[in-house]
């Protein structure tokens, strides 16, 4: 696979970058075609269309109740779309029951069979296909090696740790070499440290096997880490589908900007000020802010300026060359160890977050509560959003 190490660095101008979604010739593996799913009067999925390509690691991200799990259950075959169709490799899979689909799922609870050993759990799906004994044994051993579970093969699920169970669930769902693997909050039950290690393991296994992964998660860091593309969902609709860096740097709405990471939102009115540059009037008695945007705004149109806290510089004096600078005083400091987030209150009551790396010892911190400070950012640091 040519895209192995650099496929997630979207910035690299390498022709081998893995980005089939930008190739109009590429045939998607999965197509949601105007899919709607209703449960009684509740619309879980609202006329949604989406293409997912082969070998992608695709993340469905959203708050609970946004419909991401319903999407996954429809792919697995446990739910049927009320309207629209889901295609897998060009074939309409709506009438196909779950046991006949080349799709496997890793359950949030892992759903390991408690009465079977690890070995038998992994062999379970292969036995249903009446695989010859030799091939079956080889395949199970291969899966055990892939997930580093060789020495636990004879144990029962309750005799191993949570992290090991997670790997058994993965091995079991990969054993049948599905075209598509669905992962429902696969790391939700692990503690943070183990989760981070496992994220890289998942990516590694996905690359080794070349399987298309669709992961459901509410953890935005997890989605950003593992996925080639992320779909941010809200109330049964897709808000934005893009690579992690574009979702973070170029959110298309206040919702996405706010859901992914931390953000300052400033409301105001845009006025064109040169090529792709806008002047934003945002508060009485404050000088207007400047931001660039490739989307068109009419003069006087209301807009939202989204600025990531780490792109806001905090300083004691007004930086001489700053395009955007506002003065305030430190209201609160969130100390995160490696980073500190300063909550700065402006004279009109607006609170803006600025984040900086703690390169110095905490006792030598430059700013403390009630200190007057200047916040500044460049014209390109912020994203101008219409809604």
């Amino acid at each position: 696979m040519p895209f192995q190490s650099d496929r997630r660095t979207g910035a690299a101008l390498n022709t081998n970058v893995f980005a089939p979604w930008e190739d109009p010739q590429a045939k998607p593996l999965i197509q949601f075609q105007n899919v709607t799913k209703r449960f009684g009067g509740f619309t879980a999925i609202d006329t949604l269309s989406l293409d997912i390509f082969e070998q992608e690691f695709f993340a469905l991200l959203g708050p609970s109740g946004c419909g991401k799990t319903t999407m996954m259950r429809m792919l697995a075959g446990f739910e049927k779309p009320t309207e629209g169709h889901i295609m897998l490799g060009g074939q309409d899979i709506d009438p196909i029951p779950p046991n006949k689909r080349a799709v496997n799922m890793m359950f949030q609870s892992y759903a390991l069979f408690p009465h079977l050993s690890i070995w038998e759990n992994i062999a379970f799906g292969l036995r249903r296909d009446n695989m010859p004994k030799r091939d079956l044994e080889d395949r199970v051993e291969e899966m055990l090696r892939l997930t580093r579970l060789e020495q636990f093969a004879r144990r029962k699920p309750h005799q191993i740790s949570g992290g090991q169970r997670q790997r058994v669930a993965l091995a079991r769902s990969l054993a049948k070499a599905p075209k598509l693997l669905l992962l429902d909050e696969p790391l939700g039950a692990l503690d943070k440290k183990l989760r981070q290690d496992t994220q890289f393991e998942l990516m590694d296994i996905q690359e080794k096997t070349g399987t298309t992964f669709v992961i459901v998660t509410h953890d935005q860091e997890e989605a950003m880490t593992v996925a080639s593309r992320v779909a941010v969902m809200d109330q049964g609709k897709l808000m934005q589908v893009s690579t992690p860096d574009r979702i973070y740097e170029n959110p298309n709405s206040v919702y996405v900007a706010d859901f992914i990471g931390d953000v300052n939102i400033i409301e105001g009115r845009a006025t064109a000020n040169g090529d792709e540059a806008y002047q934003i009037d945002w508060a009485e008695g404050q000088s207007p802010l400047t931001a660039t945007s490739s989307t068109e705004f009419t003069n006087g149109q209301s807009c939202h300026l989204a600025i990531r806290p780490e792109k806001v510089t905090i300083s004691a004096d007004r930086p001489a060359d700053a395009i955007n600078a506002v003065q305030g005083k430190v209201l609160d400091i969130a100390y995160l160890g490696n980073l500190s987030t300063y909550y700065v209150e402006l004279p009109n009551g607006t609170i803006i977050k600025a984040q900086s790396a703690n390169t110095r010892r905490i006792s030598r911190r430059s700013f403390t509560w009630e200190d007057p400070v200047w916040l500044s950012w460049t014209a390109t640091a912020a994203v101008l959003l219409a809604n």
Partner: protein
Amino acid sequence: MNRLSWFNAVSLTLGFAFLYIPMVILIIFSFNESKLVTVWAGFSTKWYGELAQNEAFLNAAWVTIRVAVFSSTLATVLGTAAAYVLVRGGRFFGRTLFSGMIYAPLVMPEVITGLSLLLLFIGIGLDRGILTIVLAHTTFSMCFVSVVVSSRLVTFDKSLEEAALDLGCSPAQAFRLVTLPIIAPAVISGWLLAFTLSLDDLVIASFTSGPSATTLPIKIFSAVRLGVSPEINALSTIMIAVVTVGVITASLVTKRAMVRQKQDELAAARTE
């Protein structure tokens, strides 16, 4: 361990005396030399010997065991199926009504159950015998099985079944290979419950039995009406022994399984 206060000790003694004195007396008098039930005349096991010679009692015991095995097995199949549909079947028309109706026989007076079954068997012209007792016992014990199994199914993680389907099982295979082995303890205790219920049922059996088939409780009841004999004491003692051994075995098996699982979990925690 705390010592019991005198109040607690007295209430415990009283409670257990209330429960067990009648049984203890029965057991003691089963070893009585005398033919008179209430007069002690020295230790003897002769009544057990005589019991072994008593054709009528042995026949009744054999009928009872066959009825209990057949009816509890049938009740387990039907009760498990009913529990599965009521818990897993999703929402269908009349589900709530059915769930309520399956529990109704639990509180129905046995006399009424017995009478209605008798009327049914007469109505369809079925001769009373082992078959009718089996059917009658299945009827009233299947709701007990269904209660036990459905309480297990309610806590059963549905994603296990979905995982089985996902890995290529048909719904029937998923039930046989995943659901059934996991709920097996509940199914077995349902079977044991049905078995004991059938073993000691007198009322329903007396409505539905015929001259060709007499169960042990009926036999004992009719024998006692002619006077209590030490033989019956001996028979009752054997029944108490069988039930006690059964209960102790069942609880030991459960306890051992629990202890082993706990050890396994500890072992797993150490390897991390």
